[in-house]
């Protein structure tokens, strides 16, 4: 099998997954979820009002037709309008998704680089004091709640020291940079602990392999063993892990955006929750799932390219 057939096969495999996602979401929202018209209008609405709203939302159709509508929306990317803002959902998503991405991508890259370097240092000094300290620090970093990070950093760095903007956002370049600095730092702190631990485990796994012993027996120095032999092998799981995280960058962090009043996708979602904006939540869920599936596909393809052992 060549790469093309492999990709085609993997694409076919995504079809049942996408149908599964649609079904699950349909099940949650249209069957378990109760009547959104009632939720929206409240208990005292008149029957006529409810009926007209139901018609407007397409809820008076049979469940099967509603399901078809949902599937249709997946392929046409038409999720209708938000109940709350009355704007086209896709347009709003594009805008806020981009903001989220600019907020989370730079910290993502920095945190990757930092955690890989720290994990290498930790693996190099494995079992020694420095390694143990680094592991302990990363566990401590992992154990602090995201809420505490946000409040503490906001209060200390922005309020007390006045180094950063407390909250807010400005769309123009380069003005927005000053607003995303502090949230960016928080994002780094959030992910770095678990990343260091994960990468350290991966690196140690490789260090214990037989071929590393061979490399040492050749007379390579420990540093070049680590950088050439260990790193290239470890990069396979690390890179695939990183790519699967990419779609979440568009989603942003609900809490951080909410706290810092950054009009990203996360904030958009929180608003949707607070206003019971069904179509928005549904659209975001479906879209993010599809993006995730596609990135998963990409991960698999990159994996086959990176790892010469994989037979297609």
């Amino acid at each position, binding site marked *: *099998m060549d790469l093309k*057939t492999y990709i*085609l*096969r993997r694409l076919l495999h995504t079809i049942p997954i996408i149908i599964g996602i649609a079904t699950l979401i349909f099940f949650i929202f249209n069957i378990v979820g109760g009547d959104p018209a009632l939720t929206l209008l409240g208990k005292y609405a008149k029957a006529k009002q409810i009926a007209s709203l139901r018609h407007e939302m397409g809820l008076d159709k049979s469940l099967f037709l509603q399901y078809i509508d949902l599937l249709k929306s997946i392929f046409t990317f038409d999720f209708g309008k938000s109940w709350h803002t009355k704007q086209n959902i896709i347009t709003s998503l594009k805008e806020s998704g981009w903001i989220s991405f600019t907020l989370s991508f730079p910290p993502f890259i920095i945190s990757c680089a930092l955690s890989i370097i720290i994990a290498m240092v930790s693996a190099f000094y494995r079992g020694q004091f420095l390694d143990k300290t680094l592991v302990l620090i990363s566990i401590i970093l992992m154990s602090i709640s995201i809420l505490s990070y946000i409040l503490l950093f906001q209060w200390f760095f922005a309020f007390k020291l006045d180094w950063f903007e407390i909250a807010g956002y400005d769309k123009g370049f380069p003005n927005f940079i000053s607003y995303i600095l502090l949230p960016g730092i928080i994002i780094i702190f959030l992910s770095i602990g678990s990343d260091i631990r994960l990468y350290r485990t991966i690196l140690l796994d490789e260090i214990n392999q037989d071929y590393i012993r061979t490399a040492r027996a050749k007379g390579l120095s420990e540093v070049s063993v680590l950088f050439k032999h260990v790193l290239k092998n470890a990069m396979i799981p690390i890179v695939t892990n990183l790519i699967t995280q990419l779609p979440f960058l568009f989603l942003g962090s609900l809490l951080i955006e909410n706290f810092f009043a950054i009009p990203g996708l996360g904030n958009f979602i929180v608003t949707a929750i607070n206003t019971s904006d069904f179509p928005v939540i549904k659209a975001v869920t479906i879209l993010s799932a599809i993006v995730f599936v596609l990135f998963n596909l990409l991960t698999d393809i990159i994996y086959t390219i990176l790892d010469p052992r994989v037979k297609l």
Partner: protein
Amino acid sequence: MGIFTIISPMEKTSKPLLQVKNLSTAFPIKQGFLQRTTKKLYAVNDVSFFIHPGETLGLVGESGCGKTTLGRTLIQLIRPSAGKIIFDGQDITTMDNAQKKKLCKSIQIIFQDPYASLNARMDVYTILEEPLKIHKIGQDRNSRKQRIYTLLDYVQLPKEALYKYPHEFSGGQRQRISIARALAVEPKLMICDESVAALDVSIQAQVINLLMDLQKELGLTYLFISHDLKVVEFIAHRVAVMYLGKIVETGTTQSLYQNPQHPYTQALLSAIPTPNPQQKKNRILLQGDVPSPIHLPTGCYFHPRCWKATALCKTQYPSMTHDIHNPNNAYTCHHPLQADK
């Protein structure tokens, strides 16, 4: 190929305990866009042999020749794709589940790795009691306990061993526990799948002696699967040599080891390093590796590595032929070594 009439030196008149006729075990290879089964990998390919009661048949071959698959097919861990396995007059390939469970009492297996074949979370008592419980041997706890004591006696382990866990034993002792577990159901046929290969030399000798003692004491029949020709020569009455899923030569141990007919058998025998520095022998060095069983050579499977191969070998798989001088032996070769003499 048919059944060839080879008379065992041990039981000249009795009926074979196990008779395998044209047995094949194949694994599907999925390929292409739709992952359809386009080819089959024949791990065991049209194999026939028999074992008489009380006899030891040694099955030798290199890794990947299908000897382990054959052993596992015989105890129904793998389903054969063709052929018959007749045990005690009954074809076991057509049995239903209840009959198969009964069959477990008659055929037992001892695996290679003494560290992997015992459940690490069970103590020896539980391990040995389990087969008794499954097959409802012994009415109550007490009679089962008596039976377990007998089993420990058989494999020469002390009673204190009962309440220990496998990790507290060495490799040789673990293999004894495995043997005791297999003996619990009073089997007639024991399949020893590389049972001594993972053990150190000094321990290996202990286990081989134990197996031979048990055979004498309990009248067991062994199928002894091994890659170690020295061990097989010691323990087996008859030997079958496998290459790429097929039996290429079979015969009584002595005549086969002294007068191998198939070039592969001869090469195998000559490749064994002997612990005797005085004896310098002419080694036959085979060219290249064993071919992949997915892409089998045409004709005789051995011809790409054989120094006697001719054009005939490239086109036709030789049929099983009996040795004229030695009617107990048979081989599949167009150019048997006898012709040289």
